[in-house]
């Protein structure tokens, strides 16, 4: 009976992931997987073959209830802009769970090499995933804004990795006969490695890292499946492990950055400094909000390029208002969505959908690029790297080769930014000095609110 439930749950995971891949069925797929998960959890508790003490059962149900309430509230309260760090945090919890299981089971399987291998692997992968996810979380929510890079960090990281793996293998070969403190040393090493692994990685690459850590946690769950010979843990864990890896690669492709350079060769300081000094001395053109209102009011076609700056400023509702206002004056308005706009692929679509922007107004990069030539005004709000022409023209640029939105084809380019500071990738943008470009400085929400007010008076 229990195994049948596990089979059903495994099937629900597979079909659920499949359905998550299509816009029409995605939500149902998520629900299906959730139902499968409830079946697996309920079955594990209530169909356990041996009698269980009431106290233990109460503890399990208590932990489940507490976790459900906390998880539910956290997930419901989090703002859409903070979604990526929330996913990272939940991922870290899963990793910690796997590591704790290994800590407890270590003493129960002394002398069994196979079980010991699963336990040690679960401990190492789970801990790396936990500490790495916490660092990714801190980086995304701004607690840890500096990208720390120890001198020759690649060397130090690899040394830690080898040390961790070496100790792990030694523990397995001795089948748990070593004293407990060696296990604690391994735990500490794995936790430190997780931190070292994520700390040097640049903010722009954070989604890739989260996706990678996500597949790590999947593998950690799978090690638990090996340990208990539990098919639902194996299916769930391995599915996420492999699907997560493919997803990571797909994200790297969207940014045109090989995975190896995300992990080992984070965005270089040298190249950034060089290109920054190259454009120094060029001047930028300022534009007043009133001028922008006039310009837009008498345009035929406006394309908005939203970026993360729009999201941080919580301006997705105002921009929808602007869009409706312009449409009511028969200006054609579209949104150009770069595949990595926001902090994660698809993040910007979620944010704009939240403020009721119609799905068919969001145009993807390949479709929108030919349209810029016939566009009067391109309004870039809080985006930077995705419109940086160096990606096409400057082979020394760290983002060289990344596909961009070709906004310089339009008649007028208006860029709203808070300041002249460089974008997420930390590199300068020659588009700001383009003769067709005007800058409107200020917080996206403030600027757009004023713009809407000006337009209403016309």
């Amino acid at each position, binding site marked *: 009976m229990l195994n049948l439930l596990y089979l059903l*749950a495994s099937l629900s*995971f*597979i079909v659920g*992931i499949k359905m*998550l*891949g299509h816009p029409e069925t*995605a*939500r149902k797929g*998520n629900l299906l997987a959730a139902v499968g*998960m409830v079946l697996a*959890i309920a079955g594990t508790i209530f169909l356990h073959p041996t009698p269980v003490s009431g*106290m*233990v059962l109460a*503890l399990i149900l208590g932990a*489940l209830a*507490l*976790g*459900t309430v906390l*998880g*539910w509230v*956290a*997930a419901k309260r989090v703002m859409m802009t903070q*979604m990526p760090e929330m*996913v990272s*945090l*939940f991922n870290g*919890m*899963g990793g*910690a*769970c796997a590591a*704790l*299981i290994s800590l*407890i*089971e270590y003493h129960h399987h002394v002398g069994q090499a196979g079980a010991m291998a699963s336990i040690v692997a679960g401990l190492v992968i789970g801990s790396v995933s936990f500490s790495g996810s916490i660092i990714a979380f801190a980086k995304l929510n701004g607690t840890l804004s500096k990208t720390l890079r120890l001198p020759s960090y690649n060397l130090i990281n690899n040394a830690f990795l080898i040390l961790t793996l070496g100790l792990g293998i030694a523990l397995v070969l001795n089948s748990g006969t070593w004293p407990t403190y060696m296990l604690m040393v391994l735990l500490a090493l794995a936790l430190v490695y997780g931190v070292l692994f994520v700390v040097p990685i640049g903010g722009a690459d954070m989604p890739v890292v*989260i996706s990678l850590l*996500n597949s790590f946690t*999947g593998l950690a*769950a799978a090690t*638990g*499946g090996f340990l*208990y010979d*539990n098919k639902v*843990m194996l299916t*769930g864990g*391995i*599915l*996420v*492990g*492999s699907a997560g*890896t493919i*997803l990571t690669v797909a994200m790297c492709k969207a940014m045109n950055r090989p995975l190896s350079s995300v992990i080992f060769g984070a965005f270089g300081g040298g190249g950034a400094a060089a290109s920054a000094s190259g454009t120094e001395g060029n001047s930028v053109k300022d534009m007043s909000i009133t001028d922008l209102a006039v310009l837009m009011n008498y345009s035929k076609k406006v394309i908005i390029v939203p970026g993360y700056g729009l999201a941080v400023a919580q301006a997705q509702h105002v921009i929808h208002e602007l869009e409706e206002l312009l449409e009511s004056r028969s200006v054609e308005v579209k949104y150009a969505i770069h*595949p990595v706009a926001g902090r*994660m692929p698809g*993040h910007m*679509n*979620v944010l704009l*959908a*939240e403020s*009721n922007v119609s*799905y068919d107004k969001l145009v993807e990069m390949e479709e929108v690029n030919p349209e810029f030539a016939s566009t009067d005004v391109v309004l870039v709000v809080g985006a930077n790297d995705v419109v940086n022409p160096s990606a096409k023209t400057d082979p020394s640029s760290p983002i060289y080769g990344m596909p961009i939105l070709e906004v310089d084809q339009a008649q007028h380019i208006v860029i709203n930014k808070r300041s002249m500071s460089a974008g997420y990738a930390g590199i300068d943008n020659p588009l700001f000095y383009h003769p067709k470009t005007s800058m409107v400085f200020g917080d996206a929400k403030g600027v757009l609110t004023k713009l809407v007010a000006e337009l209403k008076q016309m």
Partner: protein
Amino acid sequence: MLELFEHNLDLIYFLILAAFVGVELIGKVPSVLHTPLMSGANAIHGVVIVGAILVMLNCDPNDTLNLILGFLAVLLGTLNVVGGFVVTDRMLEMFKKKK
């Protein structure tokens, strides 16, 4: 070492097939859905909670330390599962067609 593999051949077959299924499932997903998909996958690896529950069920009721660790494991696993599915649902809710 070889013995270990021979004894677990079923599991190894299982592992290889499941890994391929995972790869195939993600084949052609529009980039719009990358974030929800990652979040959904994140919830699914919360299945590790089954392991945490098994630890607790097999735990000696007098073993306080392990009961505490097990409780923590179940709690963290639940956060992963519930938080993961609810966040994913919230993201996908926004893709509804609005006319």
